[in-house]
C-alpha cells in the first residue's frame, strides 16, 4: 500500500515545496556573506559522508529531539561545503565566471550561504527555529535545481577561455559535491515531514511503518526501479522512433539494498536511454536487453571472522577491522583542487562520521545490449561532460546545415527529461552518483556487437 507521502518522495520535491508555500511565504532571513566568512568556512576540511550518517538519528517518525539533532548536524556540515564550492568557483578564470550563466550559479551559492549564516553560532533549540531552518533548506534545493543545465550552457559559451580538460576536472569535483549538499538538505526536509512534531502540527494521516528513512529506502528493489525506468524511457522511444525494446531481468530480481531511489533512478534512466537508443538505431529492437541483478555477499575473510567472533563486541571489532572501503574524499568531491592545501588524509576525526564498513551489502547491475557497441573514437570521449553522439537533425530532417551544437540541444531540449539524449552529461553524472557512496560504473564496448555496462552500488550497512 503506497502512501501519498511515499509517492511524493518518489516524484521528487514538487509536493513538498508546494506544502511549504502553503504554510505561508515567510521571508527567509539572510545575512551578508563576507569574504572572511567564506575563507573561514572553507578552511575547515570536509569529511566524507556515508549513508549511515544520514540515518543515524533513528528511523522515522523522528521524535522532536531527534529532529533537532538532525537539524544541528546538518547545520554543522553544510556551510563549509557551500563555502568550498564558492571558493572553487572563484578560482576559475575571471572571464569564465564573468559569463552570466556561470555567474548566476556563483551567486546562487553565495545566496544559499547567506541563508545559513544567521544560524552560524546558534544551535537549533525549538521547533519553530527548526521549521524556519527547513524552509531555508527548501530554498536551497529550489535555487539550485537547474544548476547543471545553466552551468553547461555557461561553460559552452566560455569554451574559448577554458580547456575541456579543466572543465571536466572542475565539473567532476563540483557535481559530486553538489550531490552531497543536495542530499543533506533533502534528507533533512524529508525527515522533517515525516517526523512526529510535524504530524502533530498537521493533524495528519496515520503514518504507517515505512522502509524509508528520509530519502533513503532501506528496502529498495533494483528490479522494480529497472521496470519503472524501462517504462519511462520506453515511452520516449515510442514517441520518437515508433518502437521500443524490451528488457529481460535475470539474476536475483528479488534482491534489495538500502539506497537512495532518486539517484539510482537517474543513473538507470541514463544508462537505459543509451542502450535503448543504440538498440533501436542498430535495428535490434526485437532482441531484449538483458539486465542482470547480482547481490553481493560478504567477503570470505569477513564471513570467516564473523563466524569466529561469538560475542557482540567481538563482532563489532571484526566489522571495524574489515572496514576497507573508506570512501575517499575524491569520490565525494570533497577535495578542492582549487583551494589547494586544504586536503587532509581520509580519516574522519569526528565521531559522527563513520567509514563505510566492508560488510555493507551491495548490488551489481549489468546491462547488456546489442546496439553495436561504442566506436573506438567515441570511446575515448565517453566520460567527458558535454560529449554526445546524438544529433537530432540527422533523425528529423536531412537538410540541416552541418551539425548542431550541444547548445542548441540544451536550449531546445531544456523543457525537461522528454528528450532521449543530447546533453552529454548522462554518463559522467551517472558515474558521479554511483561512485558517491563507493560504487561505480564500468563500460565495456564490443564494437560490432553491443555494449555491457556494469553498475555497482554499495548500500547503507547496518542501521541500528
Amino acid at each position, binding site marked *: 500500500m503506497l502512501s501519498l507521502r511515499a509517492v511524493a518522495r518518489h516524484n521528487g520535491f514538487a509536493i513538498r515545496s508546494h506544502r511549504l508555500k502553503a504554510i505561508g511565504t515567510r521571508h527567509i532571513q539572510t545575512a551578508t556573506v563576507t569574504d572572511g566568512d567564506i575563507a573561514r568556512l572553507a578552511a575547515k576540511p570536509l569529511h566524507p559522508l556515508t549513508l549511515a550518517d544520514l540515518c543515524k538519528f533513528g528511523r522515522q517518525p523522528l521524535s522532536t529531539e531527534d529532529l533537532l539533532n538532525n537539524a544541528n548536524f546538518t547545520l554543522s556540515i553544510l556551510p563549509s561545503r557551500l563555502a568550498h564550492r564558492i571558493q572553487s568557483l572563484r578560482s576559475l578564470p575571471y572571464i569564465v565566471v564573468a559569463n552570466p550563466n556561470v555567474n548566476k550559479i556563483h551567486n546562487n551559492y553565495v545566496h544559499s550561504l547567506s541563508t545559513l549564516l544567521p544560524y552560524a553560532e546558534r544551535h537549533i533549540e525549538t521547533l519553530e527555529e527548526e521549521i524556519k531552518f527547513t524552509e531555508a533548506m527548501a530554498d536551497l534545493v529550489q535555487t539550485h535545481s537547474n544548476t547543471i543545465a545553466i552551468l553547461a550552457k555557461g561553460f559552452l559559451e566560455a569554451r574559448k577561455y577554458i580547456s575541456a580538460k579543466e572543465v571536466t576536472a572542475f565539473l567532476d569535483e563540483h557535481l559530486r559535491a553538489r550531490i552531497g549538499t543536495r542530499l543533506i538538505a533533502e534528507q533533512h526536509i524529508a525527515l522533517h515531514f515525516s517526523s512526529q512534531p510535524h504530524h502533530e502540527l498537521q493533524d495528519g494521516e496515520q503514518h504507517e511503518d515505512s522502509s524509508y528513512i528520509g530519502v533513503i529506502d532501506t528496502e529498495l528493489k533494483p528490479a522494480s526501479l529497472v521496470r519503472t525506468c524501462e517504462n519511462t524511457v520506453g515511452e520516449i522511444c515510442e514517441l520518437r522512433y515508433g518502437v521500443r525494446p524490451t528488457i529481460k531481468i535475470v539474476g536475483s530480481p528479488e534482491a534489495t539494498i538500502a539506497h537512495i531511489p532518486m539517484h539510482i533512478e537517474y543513473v538507470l534512466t541514463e544508462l537505459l536511454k543509451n542502450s535503448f537508443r543504440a538498440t533501436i538505431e542498430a535495428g535490434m529492437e526485437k532482441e531484449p536487453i538483458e539486465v542482470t541483478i*547480482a547481490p*553481493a555477499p560478504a567477503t570470505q*575473510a569477513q564471513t570467516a571472522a564473523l563466524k569466529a567472533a561469538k560475542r557482540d563486541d567481538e563482532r563489532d571489532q571484526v566489522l571495524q577491522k574489515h572496514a576497507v572501503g573508506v570512501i575517499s574524499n575524491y569520490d565525494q568531491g570533497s577535495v578542492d583542487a582549487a583551494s589547494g592545501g586544504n586536503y587532509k588524509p581520509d580519516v574522519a576525526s569526528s565521531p559522527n562520521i563513520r567509514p563505510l564498513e566492508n560488510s555493507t551489502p551491495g548490488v*551489481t547491475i549489468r546491462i547488456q545490449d546489442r546496439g553495436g557497441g561504442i566506436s573506438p573514437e567515441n570511446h575515448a570521449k565517453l566520460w567527458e561532460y558535454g560529449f554526445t553522439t546524438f544529433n537530432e537533425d540527422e533523425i528529423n530532417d536531412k537538410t540541416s546545415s552541418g551539425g548542431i551544437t550541444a547548445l542548441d540541444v540544451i536550449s531546445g531540449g531544456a523543457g525537461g527529461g522528454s528528450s532521449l539524449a543530447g546533453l552529454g552529461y548522462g554518463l559522467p553524472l551517472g558515474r558521479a552518483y554511483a561512485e558517491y557512496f563507493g560504487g561505480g560504473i564500468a563500460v565495456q564496448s564490443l564494437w*560490432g556487437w553491443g555494449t555491457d555496462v556494469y553498475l555497482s552500488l554499495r548500500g547503507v550497512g547496518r542501521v541500528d
Partner: protein
Amino acid sequence: MQTLPYSALTNEHIGHVYELYYAAFERFRKVPEIHTLVDNDKFCSVLNHTLKEHLSVIPKLAMGVLEIQDQIGPDQCDRLMTTLLRSRISRRVIAEQHLALNETFNSPWHFPNAPKPKRDGTASATTAAEDDFIGEIFLKCNAKDLVEKCAATATSLVTKAYGSDVAVPKIILQGHLDTTFPYIPSHIEYIIGELLRNSIQAVVEQKGTTEPPPIEVLICEAQQHVIIRISDQGGGIDRDILPHLWSFAKGPRRHKRLRNLATVPRLKATMQELEVSKSQTQSHASSMPSSANEISKNYASSLSSLSSRPPELRLGMGLPMSKIYAEYWAGSLELHSLEGYGCDAFLQISRLGNKNEVLSTRASMDAV
C-alpha cells in the same frame, strides 16, 4: 636485473635466473656472423639449447617475486615481472620463429617452387596446411576452434581432478563464429585456456554437482580487432582479492601460492619432465594441422607445462600472465566481476597484425 636492489638478487630463485641470462648472453655474443647453412644449424642448436634451459624461468621468477615482496614493494615487483616477461616473450618469439622457419625450410616436403600438393588426394585443391603457417604464426586462428579446443582441454583436466561425477558446465558459443585472425597459437591458447579454466573451476566449486549454468562465450568481430567475451556464473570475485587480481605479488594468498609454485613441473628442469611435457604437447597438438605437429614437437613450449598443471594447484599467475601476453601484441584483457553472481572476461585482439610489439617504454626498462 643488475640495477635491482642487492637484496633481491640474494634470493636464490632470482639469483638463478640472473645467472641463466648472464650465461646466455655470454654464449650468444660468441656466435659469429652466419654465412652458411651449416652456421645456421649451429646457431639453431644454440638457440634450442638456450630455450630449453630457460624454460624454468617463469616459475622461478614468480617464486622469487613472492618471496622478496617484503623488501621490495609489490608495485615494483609487478613492474619488474611485467617488464621481464614482456622482453622474454619477445626474445622467445624471435628465437622460436627462427627455429620454426628453419624447420619448415628443412622439412622434406618443402619445395619453395613446386606447385601445391593436393591434400588427401581429394579432387578439390585446398591450400596446403603449411601455407597457413609462417613459422610460429598461424594465419587463420579460428576463434571458434580455439575456444572449443581449450574448452575440451580444460574440461578434461577438471574432470580428472574433481572426479568424473562432477557436473562440468557446458560452454556455449555465440556471435561471429567464422572469425579468423593471425596469431601465435600457443599464446592465444594459453590465454583462453586460463580464462576458461578459471571460469569452469569457479562454477564447479560453487555449484557442486547440481546442474551448473553454462559458460557463454561471445566472439565479436570488427575491422580492426576481435573481442572474445567469456561470461560465467561462478559467483564472482571476492572483494578482498579484487585489488590483487593482476598482480604477481599477491595479497592475502601469498603463502599458498608459494607452496604451489614449488611443485610445478619444469621447475627442476630434469630430463624426465621434458619427456612428460613432450608427450603432452603432442596430444595437445593433435588437432592442429600435421605440419605444425612436426614443428612443435621439437621444442616444448614453456607454457604447456603451466597449462597442464592440475587445477587444484593454484599458482596465482594465470591472469597477470595472460594479460601480458594479450597486451604484447597490442591487445587487452579486462575483467568485470558481478559479486555474488559471476564474472565477465573481455579479451581484445588486434587483427591487423601491423601493430608493433608492446615492450616497456625506454624509461621503465632502464629503471629495471
